């Protein structure tokens, strides 16, 4: 698996140092992304999925945030130790990112062309004409009509869906190895969401760009991803390929999460719901993070943190219930 993986995260810990002490937003997580695959990262607010992506990009606001442990290996190179100069080469060229809010991630004072061409110029030594041609080409590639005119337009002149396409164009312009998409369709309408997801699948298919898709929507994951990592309160609680996870989820949290989503295709009288509230980051210090909301919890869950146990082909679960079935994965 490490042979073909484009990114490997090992024992990553990212903490925020506040007046109330250290808050571990991401607490010892491991996962990998293979070349050309779409990996889903699912979790609720505060589970650390966005902090994970910012850690990979080296964009954790510091202070108060800091990567306090672990490795992020991009093709064998540890990004946590890379210099700021090296990170600047990697960002936008090898690893790129798109965000939830296409409104706020484009600069309203510069034209679309200006912003796209800036990225190209930073990473290539091309002349003006080549840069412009590439910009037009990339806008056409993401399915935007009248690409040449768009170069001279400002973000406010575009709709939300078009802005997200521009963001994807900017992210794809240097043929990155990995595209991190942090809730790329959450702010969009469903019909526009379908178009953007379709575009991302197409780009993944055509250019073999690996995509890390961070989302809270299990429907989106089922539609585009091949593998999924489920996070809860700063920990990976389950990992596996989507067919297995959706068909036989193992961790009580994953089970509950899948059951609580209303499926449009059938009517149920009463939805399953996980009792309790989503914990605040860093509020649970010991034991399984999910124990307080778990119907299967026993004494040990509150005092000891379970490992990720291998339960089957490519499926890992952080739960004592599966300790006997598999043995420790690490």
């Amino acid at each position, binding site marked *: 698996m490490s042979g073909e993986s484009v990114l490997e995260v090992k024992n990553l810990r990212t903490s925020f140092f506040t007046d109330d002490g250290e808050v571990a937003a991401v607490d010892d997580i491991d996962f990998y992304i293979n070349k050309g695959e779409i990996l889903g990262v699912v979790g609720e607010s505060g589970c650390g999925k966005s902090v994970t992506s910012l850690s990979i990009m080296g964009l954790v606001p510091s202070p108060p945030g800091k990567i306090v442990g672990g490795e992020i290996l991009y093709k064998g190179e540890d990004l946590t130790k890379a210099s700021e100069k090296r990170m600047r080469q990697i960002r936008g060229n090898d690893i790129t990112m798109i965000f939830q809010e296409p409104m706020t991630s484009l600069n309203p004072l510069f034209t679309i062309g200006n912003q796209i061409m800036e990225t190209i110029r930073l990473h290539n030594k091309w002349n003006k004409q080549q840069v412009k041609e590439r910009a037009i080409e990339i806008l056409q590639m993401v399915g935007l009509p009248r690409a040449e005119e768009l170069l001279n337009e400002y973000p406010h002149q575009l709709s939300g869906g078009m802005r997200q396409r521009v963001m994807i164009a900017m992210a794809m312009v240097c043929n990155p190895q990995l595209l991190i998409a942090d809730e790329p369709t959450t702010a969009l309408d469903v*019909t526009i969401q379908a*178009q953007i997801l379709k575009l991302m699948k197409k780009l993944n298919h055509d250019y073999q760009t690996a995509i890390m898709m961070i989302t809270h929507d299990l*429907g989106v994951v*089922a539609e585009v991803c091949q593998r999924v990592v489920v996070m809860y309160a700063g920990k990976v609680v389950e990992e596996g390929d989507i*067919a297995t996870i*959706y068909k036989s989820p193992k961790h009580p949290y994953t089970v509950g*999460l899948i059951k*609580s989503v209303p*499926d449009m295709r059938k009517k149920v009288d009463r939805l399953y719901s*996980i009792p309790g509230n989503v914990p605040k980051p860093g509020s649970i210090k010991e034991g399984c993070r999910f124990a307080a909301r778990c119907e299967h919890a026993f004494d040990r869950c509150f005092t000891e943190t379970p490992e990720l146990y291998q339960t089957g082909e490519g499926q890992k679960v952080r739960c004592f219930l599966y300790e006997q079935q598999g043995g420790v994965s690490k």
Partner: protein
Amino acid sequence: MTKPILQVENVKKYFPITGGILGKKIGDMKAVDGVSFHVNEGETLGIVGESGCGKSTTGRMLLRLIEPTEGTILFDNRDLRALPKKEMRKVRRHIQMIFQDPYASLNPRHTVEKILEEPLIVHGIGNEAERKKKVSDMLEVVGLTSYHARRYPHQFSGGQRQRIGIARALMTNPKLIIADEPVSALDVSIQSQVLNLLKDLQKEFQLTYIFIAHDLGVVRHISDRVGVMYKGRMVELADAEKIYQNPLHPYTQQLLAAVPIPDPEYYQADEQAAIQFGTLPSKYVIDDSWMNIDSERDDLIEVAPGHFVACRLK
């Protein structure tokens, strides 16, 4: 049981578009352009549509929080638009609203007790002791405890705040509740808790809901009937089952096709075909050619009992 509690006929809201240095009116923005429907007592009418389709404006017009430009709104056989402001305020006791953002809709400077008590004071219901009793009772009903009454909104999580918003709407014993995207700001595991709560409350207090949302899965789960809005008009209105199993309007069909299904198997068949032919799955292709013919004015036509569609094609 099938007595309509609310009848809405041809309601319109045009916002003026102004221009020039004098700010003269140069046109109309037709936010809601002739919407008609009724809601029966004890049922849930879901209203779905994408952003800007006029679903929230419609919800607000029912309470006259936005004054309609045209049309009639009959609540309990009273024409709400004909009522003077003072009378309207009294009617609002029976029609309450739950808002989307539980962070913005609760006053951060008031304790939960004060927030919940306020509707009672406004409508002059009960003395102080009765009001306090009702507050603690209502907190229990929505799954909180009277212990929470002295706290401030910021001390609660999103789901708990939405419970407070629901409790506030229930304080005056309303008949009709308009819920505008009540669960879309909540996490998945909390969303289902709140949906179940809304269903339980409906049974307990014989409530009628108008449930405005963009999430089609949620709407199917909670609604008896569903209306689909597009560009200020209602394009299809029918029983939830009919809408989801046999959508007739092309917009409804596309809206349903665009919703991601939380089941990988649903996509697998498509995936196989894609690999074989080297093309992309057909489910991703959206035909929006009909969307350009929005100048077409079609009224809702009953094509099957209780199934209304606004489209010349059908």
